[in-house]
């Protein structure tokens, strides 16, 4: 075997150049330390490639091979409230924070009411303030995932920070709008970093929208999200990806759950070129529960990868994975559901389901459960389906006067709507319902 594969020699110099352009003078000591360790790890690890098991079906060569120019400071965005209004959901009542190319845009954001002690705003501003709250949690939950998460550390700057204080319930969702404009020309990269902390007994709903005004311009977002769900806290998190036709997103979300906490997550990937959502959850306290849903709507030449990674570290935890997808044209989909049960995690209850519908003979889905169980008293199940609706279902429609084409269209819509109908935020559910209806229903 050659010592160096072509991919491992893929250039990193453009990123190194931009890391050097970052302003370090104003950065807090903690940030400088994270960046320094990030640079070192970035330089010594290979880019993810298809010879790595987790990336076997996810060819990100188009991302690795593009000499993106990374933004190192916020730029004049030139946008108005009416430019961002179509992306907002809260009708003026929520806190909706807009980030343009990864940087907080105060002038485009809406501030709803928050309980005393809560925070929702720019991570960078939170780090510069002297409360120490963001700093205490930052990079506390991210494991050594891959070259791109190292790069995110190396480029660490802005993103969103949301904090729900002890026993507080945030009554309206906090909406974070990540808007890519590619205004600095094509092949721009951004490396936003989000940190969400739900303190003991708190409740918060987070909606993350990844949208664009970039047209067909190529760009790349390298996102890392850390979420701490403390004891008895409850977090519901929705991520909706609608990147541009040539917009790429590699996202890693890392969640740590304490005792008796609850985490419910939805990843909707509707548009983009290459999109990878890696969702890692560590159930690190007895009685913690997580429920992870995903829906990919894949078509054109798009590549969508949902990688889920749950680690049961403590006894009596419960995890549910339910990911679905609809694939048409020449699109590719990947699902990996990895559940790791450590020896201490007795009485683990884990279940995963992945269901995929193929609309074209040229579309492909690779779906794989992976269970690694080191405890003996556990219940871990998994199931997967790939295919088209069964014939008796089609006949049922036809016996009610609907032809096969109508039946298939309605079933495709229904397949997607089954996930959408689980969304508990009404404004978001309605928007997603309209989207899947418009996309798949033959009867409008």
């Amino acid at each position: 075997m050659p010592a160096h594969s072509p991919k491992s020699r893929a250039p990193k110099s453009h990123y190194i150049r931009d890391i050097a352009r970052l302003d370090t003078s104003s950065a807090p000591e903690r940030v400088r330390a994270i960046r320094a360790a990030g640079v070192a790890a970035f330089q010594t690890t290979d880019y993810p490639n298809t010879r790595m098991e987790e990336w076997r079906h996810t060819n990100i060569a188009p991302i690795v091979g593009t000499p993106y120019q990374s933004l190192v400071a916020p730029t004049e965005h030139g946008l108005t409230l009416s430019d961002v209004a179509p992306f907002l959901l809260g009708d003026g009542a929520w806190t909706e924070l807009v980030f343009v190319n990864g940087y907080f845009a105060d002038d485009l954001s809406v501030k709803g009411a928050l309980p005393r002690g809560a925070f929702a705003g720019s991570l960078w501003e939170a780090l510069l303030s002297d409360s120490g709250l963001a700093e205490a949690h930052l990079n506390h939950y991210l494991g050594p995932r891959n070259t791109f998460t190292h790069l995110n550390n190396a480029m660490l700057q802005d993103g969103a920070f949301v904090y729900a204080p002890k026993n507080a319930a945030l009554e309206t969702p906090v909406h974070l709008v990540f808007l890519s404009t590619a205004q600095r020309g094509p092949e721009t990269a951004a490396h936003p970093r989000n940190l969400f902390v739900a303190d003991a007994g708190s409740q918060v709903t987070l909606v993350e929208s990844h949208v664009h005004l970039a047209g067909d311009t190529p760009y790349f977002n390298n996102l890392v999200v850390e979420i701490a769900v403390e004891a008895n806290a409850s977090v519901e998190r929705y991520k909706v990806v609608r990147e541009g036709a040539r917009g790429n997103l590699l996202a890693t979300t890392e969640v740590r759950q304490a005792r008796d906490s609850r985490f419910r997550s939805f990843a909707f990937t509707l548009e983009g070129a290459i999109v990878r959502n890696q969702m890692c959850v560590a159930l690190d306290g007895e009685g913690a529960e997580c429920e992870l849903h995903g829906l990919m709507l894949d078509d054109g030449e798009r590549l969508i990868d949902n990688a889920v990674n749950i680690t049961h570290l403590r006894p009596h935890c419960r995890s549910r994975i339910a990911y679905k997808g609809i694939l048409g044209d020449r699109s590719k989909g990947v699902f990996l559901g990895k559940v790791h049960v450590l020896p201490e995690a007795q009485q683990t209850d884990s279940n995963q389901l992945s269901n995929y519908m193929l609309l074209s003979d040229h579309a492909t889905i690779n779906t794989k459960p992976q269970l690694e169980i080191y405890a003996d008293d556990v219940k871990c199940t998994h199931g997967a389906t790939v295919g088209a609706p069964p014939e008796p279902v089609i006949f049922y429609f036809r016996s009610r006067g609907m032809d096969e084409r109508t039946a298939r269209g309605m079933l495709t819509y229904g397949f997607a709507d089954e996930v959408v109908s689980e969304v508990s935020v009404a404004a978001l559910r309605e928007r997603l319902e309209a989207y899947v209806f418009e996309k798949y229903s033959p009867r409008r």
Partner: protein
Amino acid sequence: MLQIRNLHASVDGKEILRGIDLDVNPGEVHAIMGPNGSGKSTLAQVLAGHEVYEVPEDQSTVTFLGENLLEMPAEERARLGLFLAFQYPVEIPGITNEYFLRAALNETRKSRGLEEFDAMDFRELLQEKMAHINIDPGFAERFVNHGFSGGEKKRNEILQLAVLEPRLAILDETDSGLDIDALRIVSEGVNKLRSPNRAFIVVTHYQRLLNYIVPDFVHVLVNGRIVKSGDKNLALELEEKGYDWVKETFAGATA
């Protein structure tokens, strides 16, 4: 309304219907009774247009409202006014009853050159129909048959019947798996939908359903043929003497 002449049907080369003749006129209720494997459900499925069955069109004819039924795909039969209430209704997660039924009704209306219902008007119509046959208004927002009990599924079939207003409704073992209360509720729904313009074919293994839905004619199907026809008293006789009686009496037919 419906004329069946010498209807044969086979599946995978195995003949199941072996020459059925039946006439159904508007307003009539015909019960088809028979032992397991006699071809009752096959008859229902063949009439609805299930393509798994092979029907020799040179021998068999089925005319419905003057049209050659055997030439039509299932959806066209439905639009013409033929309805099958399934023995095992399928579950359709993700599609609400309301959306499903509006699409179904509008397909039929479109084929007849009638204006389609918009969402608002249809909701009103659906509520009216649900009230008429005593169905919980919550059915509208539930996914079609998804997580329904056996009884709920059968009631949902009757709701579909009420909305689609077919000329001929075939009930395929609608009584199977129902307790006596559910049977009564379903039957009351059917009885409210009886009209001089509408005919029913009630396929059942047991006589008890016919206490609630009283038929004008009873036909006994054995081994793919109607071996005896009569009025509602035939069902009672059958209940009393059992299917062995017809099998023995009509041994020639079963050979």
